[in-house]
């Protein structure tokens, strides 16, 4: 058995997140007495959409061997500016463009400053987390939340449906899939994640690659912000506060290696987000209390990380961090 595991272990490992998702789907069907209703399925898509878009964009950053902890708050700022624009008469399409512009703009600031000051990206985003939280508070302007008045919500709510969500998630994922698996961008991301030194000696500009990566992720932030707005036409100072960690959890759940590199998988975001939503809904339907639910989710997460970190060969020495 051990020899079989040794021989096939590395080949089987990428399939584990998908197998886990299928298992969760089976459990879900079991809990719904094998009669899931349209409401069940709609709810899954509704809850997955924002996280799936954010996580898919974040895969690019993770593949680089880094992470953006300010993703969630960046989304919150994007939502807030979107609401301000809409309330000022921008319309739904205008709101979408504003969300995208803010999402991309914030991400660009992260990546450019990180390149200029030669700081590790993760450290830069930690600083941005504080800055963006303050920006969000200032933008909300002395209140606990900012709303789209109910009288003008209807055009936004017209986008609050399953097909819009599937379209946004589907198109963004398709673009990211192509970029990650079929272009130099994805190849170079994995190269940098594997070893920044080797990448630099192979002609990859780490700064340029980081900026491109954050552009892609920032687009996801903007789209996620728009999707969030279609669901709840409000933003509060806490919007997105814990989303950064939730995205990390989703990506790891989806089979993304902790250090990025060659094993990175673009589907990790969607698989992980779906898995987490299914777990959440299964526990809710079973009537598990919220406190215990958190414990179960944490235990599952630890188990997934533990399995993901098992290697069947000798561990490599840690690589140097480029900047």
């Amino acid at each position, binding site marked *: 058995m051990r020899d079989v595991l040794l021989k096939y272990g590395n080949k089987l490992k990428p399939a584990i997140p998908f197998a886990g998702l299928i298992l969760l789907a089976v459990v879900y069907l079991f809990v719904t007495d094998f009669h899931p209703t349209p409401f069940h399925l709609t709810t899954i898509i509704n809850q997955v959409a924002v996280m799936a878009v954010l996580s898919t964009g974040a895969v690019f950053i993770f593949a680089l061997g880094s992470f953006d902890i300010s993703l969630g708050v960046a989304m919150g700022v994007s939502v807030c500016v979107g609401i301000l624009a809409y309330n000022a008469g921008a319309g739904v399409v205008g709101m979408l463009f504003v969300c995208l512009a803010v999402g991309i703009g914030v991400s660009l600031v992260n990546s450019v400053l990180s390149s200029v000051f030669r700081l590790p990206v993760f450290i830069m985003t930690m600083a941005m987390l504080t800055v963006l939280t303050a920006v969000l508070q200032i933008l909300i302007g002395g209140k606990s939340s900012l709303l789209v008045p109910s009288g003008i919500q209807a055009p936004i709510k017209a986008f609050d449906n399953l097909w819009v969500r599937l379209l946004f998630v589907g198109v963004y994922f398709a673009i990211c899939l192509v970029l990650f698996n079929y272009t130099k961008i994805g190849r170079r991301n994995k190269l940098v994640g594997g070893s920044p030194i080797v990448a630099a000696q192979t002609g990859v500009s780490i700064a340029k690659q980081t900026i491109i990566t954050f552009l892609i992720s920032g687009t996801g932030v903007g789209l996620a912000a728009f999707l969030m707005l279609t669901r709840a036409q409000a933003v509060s100072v806490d919007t997105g506060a814990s989303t950064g960690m939730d995205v990390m959890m989703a990506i790891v759940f989806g089979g993304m290696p902790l250090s990025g590199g060659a094993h990175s998988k673009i589907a990790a975001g969607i698989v992980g987000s779906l898995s987490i939503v299914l777990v959440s809904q299964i526990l809710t339907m079973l009537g598990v209390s919220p406190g215990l639910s958190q414990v179960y989710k944490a235990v599952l997460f630890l188990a997934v990380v533990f399995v993901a970190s098992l290697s069947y*060969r000798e561990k490599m020495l840690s690589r140097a961090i480029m900047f």
Partner: protein
Amino acid sequence: MIVQESGVITGISIAENIALGEINQFGKYGFLRKKQVVDKAREVLATIGVTDIDPSLPAASIDLQDRKIIEIAKVWAKSPELFIVDETTTAVSQRGRSILYDLMKQQSAAGKSVIFISHDIDEVMEVCDRLTVLRDGNIVKSLPRSEFSLDIIKQLMIGRELQGDYYRSDYDGSYPDEVVLSVKDLHGFGLTGVTFDLHKGEILGIGGMSHCGMHPLGKMLFGILQPQNGSVKATDGSQIKDVATAMKRALGYVSKDRDSEALIPLAPIRDNIVSAGIDLIAKGGLFVFPTTEKAFSKKQVDDFQIKCSSDLQFINQLSGGNKQKVVFGKWIGAQSKVMILDCPTRGIDIGVKQAMYQLMYKLKQEGVAIIMISEELAELIGMSDRLLIMKNGKISKEFARSADLSESQIIDYMV
């Protein structure tokens, strides 16, 4: 045992590295007497004849060769009954090597034992009393010193008679006049005014003691390090300022530190090979298709006869020789016309070495210009059309290819 790769923890001091495993004897209740640790380390270094390394410094502040000397000191301080040295000599300077040989002799004289693992037949023949040859996980033969013979040992190692010449057979050191790389008055990183030209189809050897500046020179030529003064210009007259420019001018670079600078161990062979040549296969300058990648990678795997289960096998599962073939394949695949090779045959067996030398000669005949930086005089003499010897950051002497050139003629210009 002294391990093959790095056995030093860079985040602590040299003295703490030497005291590793025995640090408790230098303090009580968790409090460490650092001065004692440093003094003891100084004593230990002195027993192997090293007095110029300050043990209070961080291990990260010394270079790889000196770190190996620290490891030697650390192990020697334990007065081992059995002293195991694993492929260490390729990672150390000449000084380190002579320290090791001396310690091995002391060990033997004291009636204790040494197991010396090495690919270098010359040094094995010089220092060992008995040689056991392994191949593919099996013991092939054990030879007493009286039966040592270079040809026999080579044959036992590769399992067949070594066909043809080990190095190149000709002594024609000629090359076209066309200059492909022009190096003018380089300063910085220990260099103090290096000037030379590299010609199309030339194998230019650069040798010297390990701290003579030849390794940073290689990095400067490829744009990894920037000189304080001076220039490196390509055939079109443009200056090599960074790696991207170097690659656009068809330069390739094989680093001495293969596992951390040339290859990504936790990535497939295919990813590594394609990495340098990705611009060649990208459609529209952006799109890369798996079928194209596979064909690109397969060509190099076949051409270099890289032993692997498939090109999706991970680098860390390959032998040293096959890893080096992947590195070569990476740069040949990228159609490099100027190859800068830093210790290209380090840590690989003679069968693969011979294949590397033959490849280098073939590339020369195809017009590829090669700079070979090496600490092995034998291969420099055996392969170079022209040999530059460096000392203290400058070129001390130039030698032309000749059947009469010997190591003794060269050594004076190195030390």
